[in-house]
């Protein structure tokens, strides 16, 4: 009961943030001319042929606050406009591109968290030893690497030098033909999972092969943050009284670290994992562009270049909602990891 209450209360807290996001979006929107803005209000490209009527119909020359409320009404009806880069309405395009991005996240997020935590912990335990210096250098270089450059370099080596070993895009030509054909059921539209469900192992392996480089790129760049937080919180935990108690009990070093220190050190990592998600989304824009994976990030990057306003604003809205939802999950996890936190 407490749990549901808490979730409901948290969901209500989303509203102010969403209103804030909508205001930001609308301010950005109002920087454009009415002609440019028209695309935000239409659901079909045919309507754009007669822009003046769209402007009139949606009152794009009306006072700004009137426009805001009209726009909000449209958004609440699920109409986010027509994306010319995706050649479909924004909401449709969103669901069209989502699976590829989920796939990327599904593989990289666990890696980022596991490697980050492992490196941070080892670094803290062997403080000032060579392994600590090495993993800190790895983290800081990873943190400083331009993701787009890293991606290109990886492509240069693994696609160019090892001719076609790890190619860009989401699937090979043959595999994508099969996937698009009728006798391949697309349950989730996530390639790897669908391939498994269809028991087409070679497609699964092909999808995996295409995933390796983008996942490596994202992991190298993003696990630095997890590592550094884990390291400092682990160092802090190792200095706490309960660690001496555990040692005085006769616990061996392994138990002290893996049982007593780690569980406490994880708490700060959990609290920042919401930001980690936001960072991942930024990374996705770059990696998907470089590796030509047709996911959300790829779409947004093209939309920004081609002045596809509805798509770009949709991206902002989506990320705002995503951030709020991930933070809700993070809060629940936080309560699980730290018994001192009570929900409610």
């Amino acid at each position, binding site marked *: 009961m407490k749990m549901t209450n808490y979730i409901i209360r948290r969901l209500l807290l989303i509203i102010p943030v969403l209103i804030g996001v909508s205001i930001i979006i609308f301010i950005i929107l109002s920087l454009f001319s009415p002609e440019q803005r028209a695309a935000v209000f239409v659901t079909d490209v045919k309507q754009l042929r007669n822009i003046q009527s769209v402007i009139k119909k949606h009152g794009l020359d009306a006072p700004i606050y009137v426009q805001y409320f009209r726009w909000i009404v449209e958004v609440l009806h699920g109409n986010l406009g027509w994306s010319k880069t995706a050649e479909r309405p924004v909401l449709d395009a969103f669901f069209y591109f989502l699976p590829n991005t989920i796939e990327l996240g599904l593989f990289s997020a666990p890696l980022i968290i596991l490697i980050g935590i492992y490196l941070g912990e080892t670094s803290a335990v062997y403080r000032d030893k060579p392994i600590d210096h090495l993993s800190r250098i790895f983290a800081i270089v990873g943190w400083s690497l331009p993701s787009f450059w890293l991606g290109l370099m990886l492509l240069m080596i693994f696609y160019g030098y090892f001719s076609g070993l790890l190619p860009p895009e989401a699937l090979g030509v043959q595999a994508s033909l099969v996937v698009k054909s009728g006798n391949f059921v697309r349950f989730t539209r996530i390639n790897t999972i669908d391939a498994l469900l269809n028991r087409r192992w070679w497609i699964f392996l092909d999808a995996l092969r295409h995933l390796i480089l983008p996942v490596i790129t994202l992991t190298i760049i993003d696990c630095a943050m997890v590592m550094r937080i884990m390291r400092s919180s682990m160092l802090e935990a190792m200095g706490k009284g*309960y660690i001496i108690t555990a040692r005085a009990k006769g616990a061996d070093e392994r138990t002290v670290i893996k049982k007593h220190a780690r569980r*406490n050190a994880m708490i700060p990592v959990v609290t920042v994992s919401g930001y980690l998600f936001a960072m991942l989304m930024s990374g996705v824009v770059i990696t998907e562009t470089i590796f030509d994976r047709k996911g959300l990030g790829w779409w947004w990057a093209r939309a920004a270049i081609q002045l596809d306003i509805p798509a770009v604003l949709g991206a902002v809205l989506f990320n705002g909602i995503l951030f709020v939802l991930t933070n809700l999950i993070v809060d629940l996890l936080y309560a699980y990891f730290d018994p*001192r936190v009570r929900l409610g």
Partner: protein
Amino acid sequence: MSELLNVQDLKTNFYTYEGVVKALDEVSFKIEEGDTLGLVGETGCGKSVTSLSIMRLIFPPGKIESGKVIFNLKNNSKSRYVDLLKQTEHWMQMIRGNEISMIFQEPSSALNPVYTVGEQIAESFLLHQKRQLYQEAASKIDKELTKKRNFFIQRITLSIEKKMCQLALKEKETFIFKFLSHIPLLNMHLHRIKKIALDKSVVLLRMMGVPNPEGVVYRYPHELSGGMQQRVVIAIALACHPKLLIADEPTSNLDVTIQAQILDLIKELKKTMKASVLFISHDLGVIAEVCRWVAVMYAGCICELATVEELFENPLHPYTRALLRSIPRPGIKNLESIEGNVPNLVNPPSGCRFHPRCPKAKEKCTRVKPKIKKVGKDHFVACHFYGD
């Protein structure tokens, strides 16, 4: 009565940015079996470092430089003296919490906030009494197996559990055993011994005077009051019936009423468990209540060691005298404070470390460090003005 702990010329340094902190300088004392020694001194004089050095819980930048910590591992009334400082770390882990254990100053930070009280007490049993736990588990399984009304499946799981217990009892935990213990269905013996350890924790908590121990074991430390937390800390320390209990200011962060309760508890437990106690405090009053012997520490050295009565009746060392004069007592209006400050242990005063603050200091005190000498029955002092 035989000697339980004999600390000889213990020296511990801390290598810090400011320089080498000479935290302990040739500290020596003894504790007889069943006896209580109080260690008294100002904050930062090395009381806690002494206790941690005995437990060998000094970590970099700290280092135990020299000395001996001789502990009597008595087995069937046969004394066996071991120098703790010469043993391996693994050996020490078997001693800590089992033969020597410790109670800490701040109960709220001494307990791990993310585990329940029961889990933390049970850990002591699981670390040191695994054999007994497995034996108990095995006999319990046997009892359950003799019951007629068992389902077929239950019988199978029980016999798997029994096999695992026997395996654990027969050979020490081998790699294969550890590996098997991670597999579901094969790891049920672990749940069972955890449950048994938890039951033991309930018994222990009841002994500590915790109301409703069955419920308390499932609570987290932050849900308990300071007094209850300290009882839990004591329970953890006493779980395996140690021969020596080191209590590092166990009451100084508690309310006065709870302080008295905890002191009574320690006194009572000392009797029932027949443990010796090294009681550390900055409060002479508390020491007088609990201990038979007192050692007064100043700046990393022991300056006077005597029975409580002797020390209060006939204090010899100028520092002890000053210390006694600074305790508030009824009838005495103006308290005296000790002139000067606690010395910086990076550059401790030469000779007797107390000489800059000593009213009687003479030339010799600035040069020669006084050795601790016997000056009467049950009375030792480290001062140039006494003895030969």
